[in-house]
């Protein structure tokens, strides 16, 4: 009787495997269900130990172990990557070495965020938005890093590409405006890189898109300031830049308005 039951169970399991035909990702997911409850508490304990007594590379590797068990946890991906990229706990002291290490961490972090998008489902936007702001924050923390990102378009170029992607993923007014307010900064970066024509096109785009902003009064006033900057860069005479200079939203452009 017992052998009969066993044989039936085995046959049914084989039949199920033939009908469903699980792929490698299904098997990995199934293994994840089995492993997660046993592994996760220890993985988290290891992450805490790394934060208390290890270094940032170890903490990131431990964080990766956790998010491998919970691939859809976008908050975890973002927190672990930001901490890894922005924390320099190496013994390097030469500015070049610090910037080189920061560049390596930033590229690894952005790759990790990109890879995590495939499991993020409806929260993919969060990963893209976080990736957009990370290079700029890293460049503020590590002098010399921005120059090393020239092949990617600098921190603003990277941010703009991610914000475009965020806008594609989540075409809402909030995301559109997030990119809108960012455009003058991108124009400044393009101007610094010698791409004057592209900088002017970016400002024109900003003025056009400002009409779609929800706060019409704010957008109109902001677009006037952007127009003044564009006219100044085009070399038009008699442009009054006093309002632009007094506006903290355009602080990143001030050194280009002389």
């Amino acid at each position, binding site marked *: 009787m017992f052998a009969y039951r066993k044989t039936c169970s085995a046959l049914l399991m084989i039949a199920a495997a033939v009908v469903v035909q699980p792929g490698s990702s299904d098997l990995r997911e199934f293994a994840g269900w089995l492993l997660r409850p046993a592994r996760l508490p220890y993985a988290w304990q290891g992450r805490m130990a790394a*934060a208390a007594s*290890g270094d940032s*590379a170890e903490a990131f*590797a431990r964080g*990766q*172990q956790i998010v491998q068990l919970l691939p859809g946890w976008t908050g975890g991906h973002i927190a672990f990557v930001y901490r890894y990229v922005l924390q320099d706990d190496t*013994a390097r*002291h030469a500015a070049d070495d610090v910037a080189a290490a920061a560049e390596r961490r930033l590229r690894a972090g952005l790759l990790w965020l990109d890879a995590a998008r495939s499991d993020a489902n409806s929260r993919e936007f969060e990963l893209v938005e976080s990736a957009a702001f990370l290079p700029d924050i890293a460049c503020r923390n590590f002098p010399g890093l921005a120059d090393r990102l020239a092949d990617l378009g600098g921190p603003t170029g990277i941010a703009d590409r991610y914000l475009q992607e965020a806008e594609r993923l989540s075409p809402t007014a909030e995301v559109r405006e997030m990119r809108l307010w960012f455009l003058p900064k991108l124009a400044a970066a393009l101007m610094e890189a010698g791409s004057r024509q592209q900088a002017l096109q970016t400002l024109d785009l900003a003025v056009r898109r400002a009409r779609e902003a929800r706060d019409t009064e704010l957008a109109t006033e902001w677009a006037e300031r952007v127009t003044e900057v564009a006219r100044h860069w085009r070399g038009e005479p008699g442009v009054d830049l006093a309002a632009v200079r007094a506006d903290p939203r355009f602080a990143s452009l001030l050194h280009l308005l002389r």
Partner: protein
Amino acid sequence: MTRIWRGPFGIAFRHGLRLAGPVSLFAALIAVAVHAATADPELAAGAAAAASAAASPWLTLPLAAAALCILLRTLQLWPTMTLRQSGRDAIQRVTAARAVLPTGGRFAAIGGAIALQLLLTAPLAVALTWWFDAPPVARRHHVAAAVGPPVLDGVGQTLAFALAAPVPVEAIWIRADAAIPTGPAPTSIEILQDGQALSDRPLTIAESRQLARAPIDPGRTAGSGMLATFSLRHAGGDVPLLFRPGSVVAIGPSDRTTWINALMLSALATGASAAILLACALLGLGAGIATVTTAGCALWFLLWLGSVGPVDDAILAVLRGRWLW
């Protein structure tokens, strides 16, 4: 020698090997396979040694499996380890007549078990630390004790630290606790000896438990690389810092090889297993196999999975390149 091999020592060793050998090797293969499947190549390319400590679960797995198999096999195998085991009375009669100390062969059986564990885990520990990219050399860590109130919360303040004895130092690592900042600037800390800076640039600390590492220039120390006392000076910034015991560590030169460190790890783990077996033997004077096995497994769980005791810390130390002795 033959008598030892045919007695409780040899029996515990041989029977334990039959179970623990294949299980620990299988566990090692699982550990290597899972590590290879889950390690991130992006990070590994640039910071493999730094992140090798993240492989500690995979080093723990085969060592813990070996320890559990040997523990269970020894308790189950040798009749005098617990009450009401078949053959217990006969062995006690024989040992009472022949042995100077009538322990019923318990100590010999435990000796065989720990010899087996050492023999199994030593090569596993050495091989796996190499496989998991542990730093090839280990460094001594010397904890520096603060002399005076361990707080730096104002520019220009100085806090002295003393080591137990003059030691060669290549770096100083600081992991201070930060209080609520009074402004936006991170705090800069200078490391001084007799008023002279030991490092090229001050360290900057912005948050609690942030690791800050300063290489020490041996030419600037009074004792040509040897350091017994030094001080930290608050050079600016708005983050008040508190230095708990163990938060300032002097790092010695990298003159120790990791494989010896791995051997010490297996010796330490074996010592912990010996303590568990001795506790089980003591409990077995008044309890049966089920009770003793449960108690042994609970102690094993606490030691290997509950991070109680020295083994967990020692595994991390070996993979982080910290000398155990």
